[in-house]
């Protein structure tokens, strides 16, 4: 008798109307911009019109949020360009100017801190030894006696393990060699962090905190635009700058000129000169990641 009551026509109609009502509420929420973000296709598959619309929406959203005019570029790779980076270990003094120039330029979270560049202090006696390296050195003056410094960021590998393991195809290598992340497609699984042997990828465990007045409003969709909580980010060689013909901010700030950057396909470039005339070292070469980031000794 009780069972029959539960299955009555009245109950059925009640549940049906509740269901329709619930669906209507859910569908009305689908019109929100957040839902559009959620349904957005992978950046690689977007048409020019789609990209233009997304960029416009993002610029509007960020400008309102940060109270300043925000530009989001989707500048594609320049033809016949393969970016390369060389770092002179005989000149690097471990001052960390590059670390903070990178933080400022690329809108990295101040709290909790995210640094795309890590400077390792190593003992001259031990040579290149990651295990005994120190990232927290803090003497009055650098360089310290008996030490040398190895700054490490994304090596923009030609054979990137991070790209291979991404289950969402949210990260890929651009034609100019830069490995990028589509923050809208990153599901935060952190497989790429586990795969990267250089510790170059960083996860946003919480909403990144960047003071509005310190936010750099000149951004690139695949680079330094504000990131949400729960996505992985990494160095992009300052994609928003290099695709406009500028140097990455770490290259510009380096007080000793130990950082060199350019198009490896250009025979007249500085980077090409270094690669042709100096012997270069790549980190963890035995992994065959084929980095586009080289270390050398200028003197």
């Amino acid at each position: 008798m009780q069972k029959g009551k539960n299955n009555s026509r009245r109950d059925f109609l009640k549940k049906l109307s509740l269901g329709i009502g619930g669906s209507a509420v859910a569908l009305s929420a689908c019109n929100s911009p957040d839902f559009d973000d959620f349904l957005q296709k992978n950046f690689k598959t977007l048409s020019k019109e789609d990209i233009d619309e997304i960029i416009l929406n993002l610029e509007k959203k960020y400008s309102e949020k940060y109270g300043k005019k925000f530009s989001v570029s989707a500048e594609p790779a320049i033809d016949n360009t393969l970016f390369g980076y060389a770092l002179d270990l005989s000149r690097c003094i471990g001052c960390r100017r590059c670390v903070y120039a990178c933080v400022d330029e690329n809108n990295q979270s101040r709290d909790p801190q995210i640094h795309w560049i890590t400077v390792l202090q190593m003992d001259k006696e031990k040579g290149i030894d990651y295990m005994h390296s120190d990232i927290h050195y803090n003497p009055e003056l650098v360089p310290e006696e008996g030490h040398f410094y190895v700054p490490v960021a994304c090596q923009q590998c030609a054979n990137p393990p991070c790209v291979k393991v991404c289950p969402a195809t949210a990260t890929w290598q651009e034609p100019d060699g830069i490995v990028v992340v589509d923050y809208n497609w990153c599901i935060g699984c952190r497989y790429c962090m586990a795969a990267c042997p250089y510790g170059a990828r960083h996860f946003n465990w919480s909403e990144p905190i960047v003071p509005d007045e310190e936010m750099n409003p000149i951004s690139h969709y695949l680079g330094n635009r504000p990131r949400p909580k729960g996505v992985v980010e990494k160095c992009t060689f300052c994609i928003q700058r290099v695709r406009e013909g500028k140097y990455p901010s770490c290259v510009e700030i380096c007080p000793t000129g130990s950082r060199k950057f350019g198009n490896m396909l250009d025979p007249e470039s500085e980077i090409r000169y270094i690669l042709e005339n100096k012997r270069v070292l790549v980190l963890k070469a035995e992994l065959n990641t084929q980095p586009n980031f080289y270390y050398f000794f200028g003197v």
Partner: protein
Amino acid sequence: MAKENNNSRSTFLKKLTMAFVSVFGLGLATFSFQKLQGFIKPGFKSLSKTEANTHISKLHFSEVMKIKPESPPKFQQTSERLQTNEI
């Protein structure tokens, strides 16, 4: 009779050997190709870690190069993947 011959122990061993040779051959070919890519791509003169360490031991920084460093990171440790010598 012909069927029996096909299923003989020698035929089985022959096929097994061929399978092993194919699989390992393919593996070796892939490995060599990948190794080769590393050399073909840059065409640059590489420096081994041992040679780099020799350079490092001779490094000398002038006193005038000394400056105050920026503050160290507040996070406790960097990625374990970076600070390991293991592959």
